[in-house]
């Protein structure tokens, strides 16, 4: 946080002051008080004015991006925080804090304003227990529907047995248990429950794709309703890989025990996750990062992004080509080279844990020249490898026939659903946190943001391939910098206290551009060495939410291709 901070604070001082006043004027009496977070001004509002306030913020102040919804329980109240941003300027942030009483934790839903709030509020209900009034489909999202209690609430009993059958769980007074309980279709938005319950009268077929299916890239369950081969409705059922990452992070100390978990979220491209956590904690505890470490971080993260994109391109080819395409192995071959480089750098092949608060854990491996040569060899070979990908994939006419104009995600829909990363950029949204909310060494380097206007499966593929090129560009510049760095100035970590205890009740939300989209972390401290609330905002979670609007009306193969083009990692979706 050393490099960009002075500049950013200045900007904030100039723009933010007037901006905050503007917002205060806009909200008027609806803003009960201020509860500013470290990253953004925060306005406290009444739980029955959520939609009113958010509509104004969206339509009049331009906050078109609901980045995250954090729910938490205090001793005396529940609180939902809506982290708002703007797609054209992610540094212009504002938080809307909605406290609700302990006795009656009911808050108005934000779903009509931002579609993405649908899933976020379901998660808040699931884990914390806040009731969102007017929500179209308030069910558990990560945990099984028979789960007893809300795990992140304060009075949650971890010893309570959780083996409850659906029969015991279902409310006998409810009219139709099947429709409300097991039948996914009953809740889906576009299909009336009758369509499937009376299968004899309908032309549609209900199909479970997953949780074990060759094309779901992990344990994902798609509740699909088909009309012949066409998808009428699809509803992702997630949570099979939920590992209580937020709770585990809340039990770990800031200094060493949280970042290792972040490697397990998006495990195909895990370097950026580490940075998300590091960035949030460093912001919270005002830690400096030496410039040299910033370059190392930037380089390592771009290698991590390559890991993710190679796998994404390879698996997308699997989905479109068939299960034994050569492209997958080519992608794995190139990914392997990156992994070898990162293994030399970090000592690990998958769970790197390279980031430490205030820097990184190790300098480049000795002898440095050898390692530089290895990286340069890889970078020199990369253009021809990418050429090969373009020959085999993007220029293949059958692939174009399959993917161009399919899985359409229009720009406005993408914004509504909070899509970020390559998914958003393929829909023409020119946002990249590396450029728009600069961190690390990115703003010192020369690179471009890959944006496509196609909004289809093909564009998402192209964006990823172009981002690999851009990553290579960034890495090459980092290598040059590192090679010429004076030996006495190679500080890899700043002086960070052994135990970090941020000030009581400090809150921040910080995000980085991970391979799949915005990876954000919200932390509230309570004066101890562990966070009081640790909330993860994963790009995959929001991107997966866009699957339904993308694939409705398409054929099954295009549903599969659309899912592949979203490049979700269930570890990141379910956390």
């Amino acid at each position: 946080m050393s490099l960009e901070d002075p500049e950013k604070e200045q900007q904030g001082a100039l723009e933010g002051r007037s901006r905050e006043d503007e917002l205060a004027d806009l909200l008027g009496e609806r803003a009960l008080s201020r509860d500013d977070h470290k990253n953004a001004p925060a306005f406290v509002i009444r739980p029955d004015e959520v939609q009113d306030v958010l509509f104004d913020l969206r339509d009049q102040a331009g906050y078109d991006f609901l980045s995250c919804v954090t729910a938490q329980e205090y001793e005396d109240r529940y609180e939902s925080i809506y982290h708002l941003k703007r797609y054209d300027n992610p540094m212009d942030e504002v938080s809307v804090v909605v406290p609700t009483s302990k006795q009656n934790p009911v808050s108005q839903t934000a779903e009509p304003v931002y579609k993405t709030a649908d899933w976020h509020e379901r998660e808040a209900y699931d884990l914390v227990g806040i009731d969102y009034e007017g929500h179209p489909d308030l069910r558990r999202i990560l945990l099984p529907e028979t789960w007893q209690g809300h795990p992140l609430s304060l009075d949650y009993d971890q010893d309570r047995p959780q083996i409850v059958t659906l029969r015991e769980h279902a409310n006998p007074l409810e009219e139709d248990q099947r429709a409300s309980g097991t039948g996914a279709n009953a809740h889906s938005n576009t299909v009336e429950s009758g369509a499937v319950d009376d299968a004899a009268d309908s032309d549609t077929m209900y199909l479970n794709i997953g949780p074990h299916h060759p094309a779901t890239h992990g344990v994902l369950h798609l509740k699909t309703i088909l009309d012949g081969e066409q998808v009428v409705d699809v509803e992702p059922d997630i949570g099979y890989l939920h590992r209580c990452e937020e709770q585990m992070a809340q039990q770990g100390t800031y200094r060493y025990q949280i970042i290792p978990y972040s490697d397990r979220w998006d495990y195909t491209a895990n370097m950026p996750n580490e940075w998300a956590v590091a960035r949030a904690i460093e912001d919270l505890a005002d830690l400096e990062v030496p410039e040299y470490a910033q370059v190392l971080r930037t380089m390592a993260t771009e290698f991590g992004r390559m890991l993710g994109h190679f796998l994404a391109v390879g698996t997308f080819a699997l989905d479109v080509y068939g299960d034994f395409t050569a492209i997958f192995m080519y992608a794995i071959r190139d990914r392997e080279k990156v992994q070898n480089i990162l293994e030399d750098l970090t000592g690990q092949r998958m769970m790197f844990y390279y980031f430490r608060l205030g820097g990184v854990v190790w300098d480049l491996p000795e002898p440095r020249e050898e390692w530089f040569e290895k990286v340069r060899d890889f970078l020199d070979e990369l253009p021809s490898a990418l050429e090969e990908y373009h020959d085999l994939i993007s220029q293949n006419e059958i692939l174009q026939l399959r993917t161009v104009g399919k899985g359409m995600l229009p720009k406005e829909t993408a914004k509504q659903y909070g899509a970020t990363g390559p998914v958003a950029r393929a829909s023409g949204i020119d946002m990249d946190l590396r450029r728009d909310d600069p961190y690390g060494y990115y703003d010192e380097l020369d690179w471009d943001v890959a944006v496509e206007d196609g909004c289809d499966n093909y564009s998402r593929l192209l964006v990823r391939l172009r981002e690999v090129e851009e990553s290579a560009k960034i890495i090459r510049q980092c290598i040059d910098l590192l090679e010429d760095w004076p030996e006495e100035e190679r500080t890899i970590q700043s002086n960070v206290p052994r135990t970090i205890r941020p000030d009581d009740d400090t809150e921040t939300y910080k995000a980085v551009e991970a391979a799949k989209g915005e990876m954000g972390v919200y932390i509230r401290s309570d004066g101890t060495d562990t966070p009081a609330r640790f909330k993860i905002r994963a790009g995959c979670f929001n991107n997966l939410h866009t699957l339904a609007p993308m694939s409705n009306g398409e054929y099954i193969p295009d549903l599969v291709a659309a899912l592949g083009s979203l490049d979700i990692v269930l570890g990141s979706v379910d956390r």
Partner: protein
Amino acid sequence: MSGVDLASVLLQQNGSGNATGNATNATAGNATNATAGNATNATAGNATNATAGNATNATAAGPTSETPLPDLISGLLGLDGFGIWGDAVAALLGAFLIANVMLTMTAVAGPWAKRKITAAFTDRIAVNRIGPFGLLIIVADAVRLLSKELIVPEGADRPAWDLAPIILPFSALLGFAVIPMGSGIQLADPETGLVFAFAAASIASLGLVMAGYASNNKYSMLGGLRSIAQNLAYEIPLVVTAASVVIFTGTLRMSEIVAVQSQPLIEAGALTIPSWFAFVNPFAFVLFLVANMAEIGRNPFDIPEAPTEIVAGYQTEYSSVYFVLFYLGEFIHIFLGGALMAVLFLGGAAPPVPALGFIPGFVWFVIKIWAFFLFTQWCRSAVPRVRIDQLIEIGWKGMLELAFANLVLTAIIVGVII
């Protein structure tokens, strides 16, 4: 095995009936033969030139002789004197031999060659631990697959569910009854051989739809429906393209189709290009190749089983022995597709240049069908799968028109110019 045997006996009778100079469709007993006989009359008329295939010459069995294999066997074993029973035993032995050859090739192709080829395309090594070049993986895989539990899904439509995996491989084996494999290996050479081969091969569709319908699984159902839609769309161009070859040859008899291709097309000094129909009409060759890929359901037309979409299509619910039968059936179908390509377009078992004639015809035949197998595996590694609606569109709006255009063109060339 009984299906093959019965058919070969019938065909063998049919063949010997022809040899004595009787009219074309004397024996019925078999619906496919009856229709095929009509087709012969319609397209080829009476132009059945007996260039070869005189069954009376059973003793003169050479590499170029077209003596049906059963006659050869009965001659060798001295079964001639036993009348129809002798013929039946000889036919049975012949069918047994051919079926075993094909199944052996399938065994090599399925667990071993397929892996090796795919590995070569994807920069890997594949099986190399068990036996020389990993060849004993075939045995290991056979034991592994056969020792698995046969899981019968609840609600399966039992007789149909059990019959489907039997129909698939045996329909393909039935097709081999009329394929001339060179070196005198041919079970029967009826006048309607080509149509019989197509008819036998398309029985497989019945097996696929039975499997899809009887499995009580939605993925299987989708796979079965897809396979029917696909076979409907591609069988017509396939047969129509084959008919363009028949216009050239004027016969449906396999041995004669092969014999017509043995003449040189162009002779330029030492280089002789034989008049294989692949060279005579490359357009028809490509059409047939594409339609054939769809017919046997290989990439880019493998949508009936498209693993990343509908798990495994019609064979989702099959395990153990039934799975092995499906697996075998698919590979025999690939080989039958290759055999039809070889007979119709690549000169059957003939060597590409006469100088290579010292290599037995059967070897050339095997090389040709394996070349086709290699081609299917190449596509599997490199070509994206088309979508079901695109597949149907290509079939009905593209292939069908091209096939008919090719047929009309060929008819004009043959009828007007030559």
